[in-house]
């Protein structure tokens, strides 16, 4: 009979179970770096010109990052005031990923993501008014108030939406790419999901099929360190980007707190996909500042860890870069911020004042063809 182990655990061996983001080496009395939930690769050394970005693009990028940040901060306040219900998953901290990517892509390239989708919507066709109204469940929302926070979309702008089942939209991203290849339209699909989705079987099936059929799709893990409250190293084995090796798929790892890195590398990858019609598997490492959703007390990580990432905040970093390199004056930055602050406040007014959907809307948008509702008579007075 084998020896009985006293300490059987169903968790990775060698990881302190108490808290993520604690200082290591405390016992020896030495100050040592934090054991963080994600380690960032070095950012690109390129300046904006070397990365291929113009001054005008930088201004647009700053506007977009600031809009995403401010929109979500206000959304959070509105949620806390009880202006709307449901889930609210904030993207704050990850905005360099959405912003860098949309500039790296053509406007008709396709984007699909999971439920942390406000930032993606705001950089791809959802106006602040439409976004805020969607959160409020109003008829003027981007999805007519039927989707809410998790289902922002602007399909005419090739943003296919936010999806609510972890990993569920990964095969759909492959299908969008399949149709692009079938129609030979030259479009590249980008499919974003969190590190938690890496553990879903849907990812394996989709990567295998996409590599087999050479579908023009970039699968991007936005590894923000946590699958809800479980640190990446606790929920998945090995390095995430190395999954690609099993499929013989091209892969990359990108610093997602650094806008220029995201832009430069995603552009090179999109160019390669357009040229070769071969898929990529990309891990962009980033960090979310807020909880998984509004109900998350965040007991699984330290304040020190959060502070470490806030030191390299993409918003602050870009603002600093613009000022340091005299690409924008202090006044121009302030004016731009004031303009967006007002735009977001106006969006709240717009959402407040917009009507809720009419009762008839309950039965609308179910079918593209002939609608059918079983036993509908039972619901009509």
């Amino acid at each position, binding site marked *: 009979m084998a020896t009985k182990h006293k300490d059987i655990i169903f968790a990775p061996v060698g990881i302190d179970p108490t808290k993520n983001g604690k200082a290591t080496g405390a016992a020896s009395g030495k100050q040592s770096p934090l054991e963080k939930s994600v380690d960032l690769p070095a950012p690109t050394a390129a300046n904006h010109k070397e990365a291929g970005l113009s001054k005008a693009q930088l201004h647009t990028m700053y506007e977009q990052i600031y809009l995403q940040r401010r929109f979500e901060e206000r959304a959070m306040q509105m949620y806390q005031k009880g202006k709307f219900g449901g889930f609210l998953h904030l993207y704050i901290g990850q905005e360099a990923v959405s912003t860098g990517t949309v500039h790296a892509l053509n406007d008709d390239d396709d984007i699909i993501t999971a439920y942390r989708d406000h930032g993606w919507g705001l950089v791809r066709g959802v106006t602040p008014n439409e976004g805020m109204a969607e959160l409020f469940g109003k008829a003027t929302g981007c999805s007519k108030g039927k989707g809410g926070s998790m*289902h922002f979309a602007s399909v005419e702008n090739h943003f296919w939406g936010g999806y609510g089942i972890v990993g569920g939209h990964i095969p759909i991203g492959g299908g969008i790419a399949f*149709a692009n290849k079938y129609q030979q339209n030259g479009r590249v699909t980008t499919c974003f999901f969190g590190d938690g989705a890496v553990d879903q079987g849907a990812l394996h*099936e989709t990567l295998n099929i996409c590599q087999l059929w050479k579908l023009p799709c970039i699968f991007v893990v936005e590894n923000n360190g946590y699958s809800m409250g479980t640190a990446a190293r606790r929920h998945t084995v090995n390095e995430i980007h190395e999954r690609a090796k099993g499929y013989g798929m091209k892969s990359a790892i990108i610093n997602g707190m650094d806008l220029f890195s995201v832009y430069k590398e995603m552009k090179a990858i999109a160019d390669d996909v357009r040229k070769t019609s071969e898929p990529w598997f990309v891990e962009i490492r980033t960090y979310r500042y807020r909880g998984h959703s509004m109900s998350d007390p965040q007991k699984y990580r330290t304040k020190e860890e959060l502070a470490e990432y806030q030191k390299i905040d993409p918003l602050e970093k870009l603002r600093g870069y613009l000022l340091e390199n005299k690409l924008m004056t202090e006044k121009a930055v302030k004016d731009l911020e004031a303009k967006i602050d007002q735009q977001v406040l106006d969006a709240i007014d717009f959402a407040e004042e917009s009507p809720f959907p009419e009762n008839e809307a309950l039965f609308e948008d179910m079918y593209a063809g002939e609608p059918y509702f079983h036993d509908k008579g039972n619901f009509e007075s």
Partner: protein
Amino acid sequence: MATLQFREAILAGIDEEMARDERVFIMGEEVAEYNGAYKVTEGLLEKYGFKRVIDTPISELGFAGIGVGAAMNGLRPIVEFMTFNFAVLAADQIINHASKARYMLGGQLSCPVVFRGPNASAGQLGATHSVAYDSMYAHFPGLTVIYPSEPDDAKGLIKSAIRSEDPVLFMESEQMYGMKGEVSDAEDYIIPIGKAKVKRQGDDVTVVATGKMVHVVKQAAVELAKNGVEVELIDPMTIKPLDMETILTSVKKTNRCVVVDEAHPFGGVAAEVGFLIQREAFDYLDAPVQRVTLPDVNAPFSKKLFDLWFPDAKQVVEAVNAVTYRG
């Protein structure tokens, strides 16, 4: 009229739709080089090539989702499952995505995909290969569920399914693939979705059945006719939308009804049809509605137990005797 096997009728419908619409393609396990596990796709690869006739890995969740995404992005996918038992692995794509994406995005996209394959029992295949899924999918808003019983219906309905703007589940049967029948050779033969057919006229009792059960009821009707009981057999053909009007018209004439359903009893088509008859035709009924279904038990392998499990003509006769108060 041409005499075609059930599989040939489906194939003819798919072939015609692929010929008329470049956006239509078919994908699934063994559909291309193998010519289809049940030969429904025989010859399509040769005719349309690997762009439109596509062998998939055994990854139901993956390829069903690729079908959903392709449908959203302008194509008309036909996704074949080797059986609907395997489609359970793809249920997230059918139930959480195909049926809901349009609504939750406020109508910004549509999802014209056909999921098709054999449904329900095919003999002694054991517990995991024998389940009827039509009523389960019919439960979910946004999904159309078709389950034809004869070659002619299959051809006309598969064409409608492929042309539908919304997701359709098209259900067949391993045991019906070889069945022959007269099929209309009218050009572009279409049967509208959501219309029932009266498969046998009779004044004494209405029997509602779909798929394989239609043939079980036909056998029973022959027996019952010998004793002077004339069955009116209604085949809804489409489970959802369900043509209750045709069923109610018949029940109001016969005043008696038996529903035969190759599913388990809880919450199935039989339960739903029975409830609606009760509510809509209560005053016309001369007897409580009866149903013949599988028991609430998994499919056994042993022939003896299987025969006990599977609904047969004798059970239909007994149910008809019950509603006609005959010994």
